[in-house]
């Protein structure tokens, strides 16, 4: 079971996770990652832009890759787009599996690839105004872990 969505408005991670978990009763373990806008460093807002014809298809392809690579009962990806405030949820990824090692690996893998490969463009607003966020070398290193 794959559930992959872009969220144009704020979403409730606990709610999403409850509904996802209910859909995979046979899974012994559910690993989740929740990424939030950091409530520090002078960032007043984060804005994520996407390109509709490519962003969601990209997420779906990533989810399929994870499903081929690990034994999963379910995979959830919910990613916010638009402008959000510090503390707001940005991304929720969850993997449900019979064996927890699969759930951990798949969730970790999806996050590493979402971060540096998704068709998403982010800018943040500080007191100095809006600034586009550039790619980070670390993102490449993170993806290289998966061979």
């Amino acid at each position: 079971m794959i559930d992959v969505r872009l969220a144009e408005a704020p979403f409730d991670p606990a709610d999403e996770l409850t509904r996802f978990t209910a859909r995979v009763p046979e899974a012994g373990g559910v690993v989740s990652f929740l990424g939030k806008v950091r409530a520090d460093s002078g960032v007043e807002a984060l804005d994520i832009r996407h390109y509709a014809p490519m962003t969601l298809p990209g997420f779906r392809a990533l989810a399929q890759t994870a499903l081929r690579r690990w034994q999963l009962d379910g995979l959830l990806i919910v990613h916010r787009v638009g402008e959000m405030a510090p503390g707001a949820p940005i991304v929720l990824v969850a993997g449900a599996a019979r064996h927890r090692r699969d759930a951990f690996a798949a969730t970790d893998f999806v996050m590493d690839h979402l971060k540096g490969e998704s068709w998403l463009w982010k800018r943040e607003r500080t007191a100095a105004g809006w600034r586009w966020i550039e790619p980070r070398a670390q993102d490449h290193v993170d993806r290289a872990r998966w061979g």
Partner: protein
Amino acid sequence: MSARLVFLGRLEDLAGTAEMAVEPGPLDQVLAGLPRELAVALLVDRVRFALNGRLLAESGGITLASGDELAFLPPVSGGQG
């Protein structure tokens, strides 16, 4: 009917708009009609092109037909954390 250019990320700031209708035709000709600074920014190596939602392997020889959408994709942003 016209073709459409889509500018993502910082290219939107540079273009001053997220989308722009243009006359169909060879890409070189389309770009020649844009402000020089924008045209140069679009042809930088790290900007990828997508024609009607499909990533192009190379930008040479593109001709926009009526109704086509050509998107310019600068490098995607890294994550926090």
